[in-house]
């Protein structure tokens, strides 16, 4: 799983039926200190995250499908948590 920051919500009228009824969010992967890491990705939202939230994202098919509640669907990334804090020890 990775940490990310939600930048926006993607509007897509024409999409795979399994993506209907779920938000598709634009997520910037971030380091634990919140600095940007790599290119933005798109993830289905399973926890009602919003723009500006720091989130936890799964990047593997089975986990992504299960979290989104859609089996056998073309989903490779899902937001599975809104992060309140990261404690560096």
């Amino acid at each position, binding site marked *: 799983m990775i940490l990310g920051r939600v930048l926006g919500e993607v*509007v897509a009228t*024409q999409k795979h039926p399994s993506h209907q009824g779920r938000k*598709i969010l*634009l997520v910037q992967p971030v380091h634990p200190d919140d600095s940007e890491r790599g*290119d933005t*990705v798109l993830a289905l939202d399973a926890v009602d995250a919003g*723009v500006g939230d720091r989130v936890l994202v799964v990047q593997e098919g089975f986990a992504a499908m299960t979290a989104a509640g859609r089996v*056998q669907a*073309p989903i490779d990334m899902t937001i599975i948590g809104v992060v309140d804090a990261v404690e560096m020890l």
Partner: protein
Amino acid sequence: MMLAKVIGNVVASAKNAELLGQKLLLLQPVTRDGTPSGRPLVAIDAVGAGVHETVYWCRGREASLAFGSNVPADASVVGIVDGITTHGAPAGGRKTGRTR
């Protein structure tokens, strides 16, 4: 999933039988402001996307699940992006925050 721009079609006469009737698209992955990022790739179209459209695509074993059968795909186009709303802050370089 990731953002990409459709930059072409791929025609293949001899191909896996499961691929018959499927459209192969040439994609250029892009950043949120539409800047090319990384190498182009070929993906199977699941939504009827066309050239120059901004789309989002799925990779890995999940890509073949867009077709509900045994289509051998490791990348598939699963949505056409109309725009990106950011509730104030632009997601990209353009002031509207839209990708096209």
